[in-house]
Each structure stands twice: as C-alpha cells, then as structure tokens.
C-alpha cells in the first residue's frame, strides 16, 4: 500500500463521538480492527505508523488498551471534553446493549443458542485479529530490516510460542529495545 502524504483532517467533537460510537457498535470480535479501520483507512485521522505508536503507548498503560486509546486520542482533539466524548462513544452503546442482554439472561438464563453462535463468532473474531496484526506489522516490515524486527519477533516467540512469563520477557527485551533505540539516535 503506498503512502499518501496529504494534509490530514482533524475531527470535530461530534465526529469524534460518532466515530467512537461506530467503532463500538460495529466492534464485533474486539475493537482493535474497527479502531484502526476508522482512524487509518476511513477517516485518515492517523497514519499507519501513528496508529502503531498510539497503540504501543496505550498497550503499556494499565487498563483496557482501546479505552486508553479513546482517552489519549480524544484528549488530543478536544481536551477533557474530547476525552470524555470519545469514552462515551466507545462505552455508552455497548453498556446499554450488554445490560439489556444481562437483563434477558437474568430472566431466561438459557443461552444454549448463543453459545452455539459464539463458536462461529469466535472463529471469525480470531480471523479478524490475525489480519489486524498483519496490517499493523506492515509499517515495521516496510522499514529496512534491522533491530526492531528482531525485538518484535523475539517478543512474539518468547510470549506467544515459548509461553514464557510476560514480565520476564519484557524485563529482558524492554531495556534491550530502549538501549538499541538510543544507540540508533545517539
């Protein structure tokens, strides 16, 4: 995919609220795919690289990462109001929906049908996660091959394949990654 350098649009507050509400309402199978699609592909409010950078920051903050992302992005657009509107959009519709489902469950309690649908939905959701991961790896792959690739692959192998404890892997790779980033920019 070619990079198109163009003046990037900035959302208005109503657009911000609407965008996060749509991310939430469409957000089957996790909201990462839908956030990236909205931010990078549809509205072009961020480049692929900027999205990765924001995701990386939010991933290392405590708490749910896309919720953090809504706060960080919303704050950039409209300060406290912006952060609040992005959060409201992301959490409001699912809150209403899931509470309604909770009400139905409390009264009927039989979700055998839902459990069966869940098997299919979970498989599709996993597929969506695979394609999102691949897309997010693209900016890394576009760079000249080098140290960041090794760090990314080592993290993937250590946590995902070897299943070593995440804090051990990060305890080794994080200082290494910082040292190497410093060395490149020294």
């Amino acid at each position, binding site marked *: 995919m070619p990079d198109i350098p163009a003046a990037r649009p900035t959302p208005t507050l109503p657009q911000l609220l609407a965008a996060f509400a749509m991310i939430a*309402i*469409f957000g089957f199978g996790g909201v990462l*795919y839908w956030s990236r699609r909205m931010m990078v592909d549809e509205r072009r409010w961020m480049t692929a690289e900027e999205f990765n950078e924001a*995701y*990386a*920051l939010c*991933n*290392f*903050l*405590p*708490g*749910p990462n896309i*919720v953090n992302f809504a*706060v*960080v992005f919303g*704050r950039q657009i409209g300060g406290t109001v912006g*952060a609040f509107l992005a*959060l409201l959009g992301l*959490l409001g*519709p*699912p809150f209403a*929906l*899931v*509470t309604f*489902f*909770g*009400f139905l*469950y409390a009264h009927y309690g039989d*979700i055998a049908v839902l*459990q069966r*649908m*869940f098997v*299919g*939905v*979970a*498989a*599709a959701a*996993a*597929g969506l*996660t695979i*394609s*999102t*991961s*691949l897309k*997010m*790896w693209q900016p*890394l792959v576009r760079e000249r091959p080098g140290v*960041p690739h090794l*760090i*990314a*692959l080592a*993290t*993937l192998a250590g*946590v*995902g*394949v070897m299943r070593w404890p995440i804090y051990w892997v990060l305890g080794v790779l994080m200082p290494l*990654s*910082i040292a190497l*980033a410093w060395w490149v*920019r020294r």
Partner: protein
Amino acid sequence: MSHNPGILLTLAGNFSLMSLFAMGGANAAFPEMYRLAVDVMHWMTDRQFADLYAIAQVTPGPNVIVVTLIGYHVAGLAGALVATLAMCGPTCVFAFFVGRVWDRFKEARWRLIIQAALVPISLGLLGASTLVIARVAGQSWQTVVLMLLTAAVTYRLRLNPLWIFAIAAVLGFAGAV
C-alpha cells in the same frame, strides 16, 4: 439481587484494583475476574461465568464490557455502572495525564527513544496474543477454515466484515462449525 452499598463498594474496590494490573487489555484480566467472581466472592457459578463471557463476546464493543455484565449480575443496573466505572475510571484518568505529558514532549529525544522501543514490543505482544486467540478459537477444521478465510478476506479487501460475523453466527447456530 441485593442493592446495598456494601456490595457496590466491594465491586468498586475489586475492579479498580484489577484494572491497574490489567496490562495488555481486558483479556489479560479474565483469569483474575474468574477467580474473584467464582472462587473468592461466589457471585456466580462456573457455568454462569462462562455464559456471561459468551454474552460479552457476541456483544459488539471492547472486551472490557464483560465487567459490566458481572456488575449487573451482582447488583443490577447500579452494579453494572459501578463495575464499569471502577474498571475504566482510574486508568482513564491516568491515561489522560500520561497522554498530556506524552504530547508536551512530542519532539523530546527521550520520548522518541521510548516510542521507538515500545512499538516493536507491542507488535510482538499483539502477535503473541493473536496466536493464543487463534489456538483457542480454532478447535475444529471448520473453525480453522472460517478463521483463515476471515483473515484473508479482511486483509485483502476493504469491505466491512460485519456480514462475515452474520454468516459465522448462522454457521455456529446451525452447528456447522
């Protein structure tokens, strides 16, 4: 269902504490949620927890809304609200201020270095959690096919994958996957 302030305080305390350790998103906190709701507090049975998890998964939105359901199950609408705010509130305030500092030092060398260091690691972690999710979801050859087809179609094409979820739900309902 009880609506006394004690249970709301318990929900608020436990979920705000949990949120602070939930690095890597709500998925990372699921085992802890299970332990709290089923083993420690006896709010629900193992089966009920699995049901609530499934309901949250087929509801669109961030995975964290399973917390809303647990809160609702324990103390109705007030419980849903308290659990959600406790799980998201403190970390959102934190993210707000970190975001502000992060922006203020946009051009600072230390920020560029940390950012350059975090991106590959977060992509590695994303890849690792993708492997785990794929392993759990791909239990039969049918689910593996559905998963890989979804991945290929959404990677190549820009079309909205909502219809894939509709088909996947129907296939699941029909017992075809």
